[in-house]
């Protein structure tokens, strides 16, 4: 399943702690090729964002405790 396109406001998606979106942020922010671009990000701030992201990922994982059959989840199928 592809990550969903931003059809709704990001805020709304985040409030629903959409695990797909959080996966997406995790991928683009923490992975990908690192080449020395010329805008260098403060590492402390990246860590800060990542801590919040981890917390949300966990929150999303908790949500997935709900029965697997229900709704649009990215369970293997």
């Amino acid at each position, binding site marked *: 399943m592809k*990550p969903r396109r931003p059809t709704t406001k990001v805020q709304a998606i985040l409030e629903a702690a959409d695990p797909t*979106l959080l996966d997406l942020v995790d991928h683009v922010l923490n992975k990908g090729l690192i080449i020395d671009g010329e805008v260098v990000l403060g590492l402390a701030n990246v860590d800060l964002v990542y801590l919040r992201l981890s917390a949300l990922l966990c929150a999303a994982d908790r949500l997935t405790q709900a029965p697997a059959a229900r709704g649009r989840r990215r369970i293997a199928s």
Partner: protein
Amino acid sequence: MNRTDGTATYLYCLVHAARPATGRTPRGLAGTGPVRLLDAGEGLWLAAADAPLARYGAAPIERGLHDLNWVSACAMGHEGVVEHFARRATVIPMKLFTLFASDERAITHVRRTRRRLDRLIARIGGRQEWGVRLMLDEHRALKARAGRGARAGRTGTAFLLRKKQERDAVHDLRLGAAAEGHRLFQRLARQADDARRQTPAQSGSGLRVLLDAAFLVRTGRAAAFRAATAKLGRQLAGSGFHLTLSGPWPPYTFVAEPA
């Protein structure tokens, strides 16, 4: 080093193709210009766009990083462009917020790292990334195991005995679950060209993340990989395990430096 017009060059990804088909390219990050393809020679292109420094300079980005909504919106813009090209050619996705002072600087940098990039392209070409997470609902798993063991008895000894059994059960469960995560990784890795385990973020709740892994799979083998994952997920579901699959992703994990 910045251009006088107050813009930088934002880099989404590198595209490996004789002549990349563009199609209708997505908008990308808010406030950036249309996506352009810069020729780095010998079939390598940079998917780039003008980014106003007022929004994407070091300081605005640092400020923006505190706002997860803003980061998410940027992430979706970035990913939209990368996926657009990934559907048509081999891409090397860049990390979010890769910026250069000018097109020339970006091209120069890519040319300088060309040998490493060619090795990467050979490794990831025609392949996609899939993410697999295995979690355990400890509460459910313990309930499934309960039933055996002494329940009766109101004496202090029986109480202590029961407490010990509960502690042992949790210990055994975690040992077994960790082994299950390892086994799952090994089995799926056999279906993939490359595989990486990441240190899972733990929630501290009843749901324990046992495995957080990425697999690099040939596009033609994707259906088989999905089927294998689904089958393993079904086998595990009965004992409190919960497996999720995400993808296909551009190979973000496999172009990053190994941790």
